[in-house]
């Protein structure tokens, strides 16, 4: 057998191809080509040595072929495409992981109601009022009135588009009661992922009020929620 000549030929071709990652595929393809040509020649009745010589001659100049292949399998483009695929994979894995864990955290974490000691609570209303402004949905979940005359309003809001445009909720609106008092809320919100939880605390809320009114009227968006308040357990 004279395979070493074939191997030398392929080696010369590959030595010209600078992008090493493509070498394996080129080697396989040329190898299989040699084998086909060799058996084709044998089938015409040539000796093994002649068949190999013919196969080599038919192939041409390995330096020339290698140089041509190198132009196409350019290392710059080759490595760029390897790097972009790696980056793509990393980004996909990262976003699946980040989005998934954020969704889980925000769905299961508490909305902060338990931060108020039970003994301080005069009444606790669980409500389910939902309003939507543009792509953002605000859901009011809990109203708690405490001994120190603080009214706590718990809500969560989320963007109904998966990756929202970043519309953020500056204010939930003007908070008043049925007696005509307006309240300024101090509040905190935690944005852990897709759902932002918000806790507004109104100081000195009138205990005589029987309705809590939230009015939002900004940027041509309007909504009003009227929440009947519980009886004070005094």
């Amino acid at each position, binding site marked *: 057998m004279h395979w070493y000549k074939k191997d030398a030929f392929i080696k010369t071709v590959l030595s010209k191809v600078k992008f090493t990652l493509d070498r394996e595929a*080129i080697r396989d393809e040329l190898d299989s080509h040699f*084998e086909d040509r060799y058996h084709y020649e044998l089938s015409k009745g040539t000796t093994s040595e002649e068949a190999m010589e013919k196969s080599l001659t038919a*192939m041409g100049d390995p330096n020339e072929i290698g140089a041509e292949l190198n132009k196409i399998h350019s290392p710059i483009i080759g490595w760029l495409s390897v790097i972009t695929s790696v980056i793509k994979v990393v980004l996909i894995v990262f976003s699946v992981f980040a989005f998934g864990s954020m969704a889980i955290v925000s769905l299961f974490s508490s909305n902060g109601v338990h931060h108020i000691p039970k003994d301080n609570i005069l009444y606790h209303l669980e409500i389910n009022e939902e309003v939507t402004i543009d792509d953002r949905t605000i859901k009011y979940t809990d109203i708690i009135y405490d001994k120190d005359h603080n009214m706590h309003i718990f809500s969560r809001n989320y963007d109904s588009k998966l990756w929202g445009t970043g519309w953020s909720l500056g204010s939930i609106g003007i908070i008043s009661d049925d007696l005509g008092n307006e309240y300024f809320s101090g509040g905190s919100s935690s944005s852990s992922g897709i759902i932002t939880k918000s806790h507004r605390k109104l100081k000195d809320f009138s205990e005589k009020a029987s309705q809590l009114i939230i009015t939002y009227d900004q940027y041509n968006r309007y909504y009003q929620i009227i929440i009947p308040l519980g009886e004070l357990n005094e």
Partner: protein
Amino acid sequence: MSINKNLLGGSAALLVLSLIKEKDMYGFEIILELENRSDQTFQLKEGTLYPILHKLEKKEFLETYQLKGERGRKRKYYRITEKGIKQLDEEIKQWTSFKSGVQKVIGEAHALV
């Protein structure tokens, strides 16, 4: 009569795409087919076929897959893509107009003699 590789130059893509459009082929099959059909006019050095094939693949005119051949060795088959079919139509148009242009000049030159 055999034509050298440089003359074949630009039309190599046209020939290769036409053959592969008929059926999926591997490299050596393309060589044999070219030789048989053109009555040995195109005796492409076999090694130079691969840069052509790889370039067409890079341009997404061809795509590849692997199948095992008779002796169990994997062969890389080439298949034409939608983009490749469009490219082939374009090349055929160019070739036809080139051929008729050459024909006109040759015709007139001969008429003068």
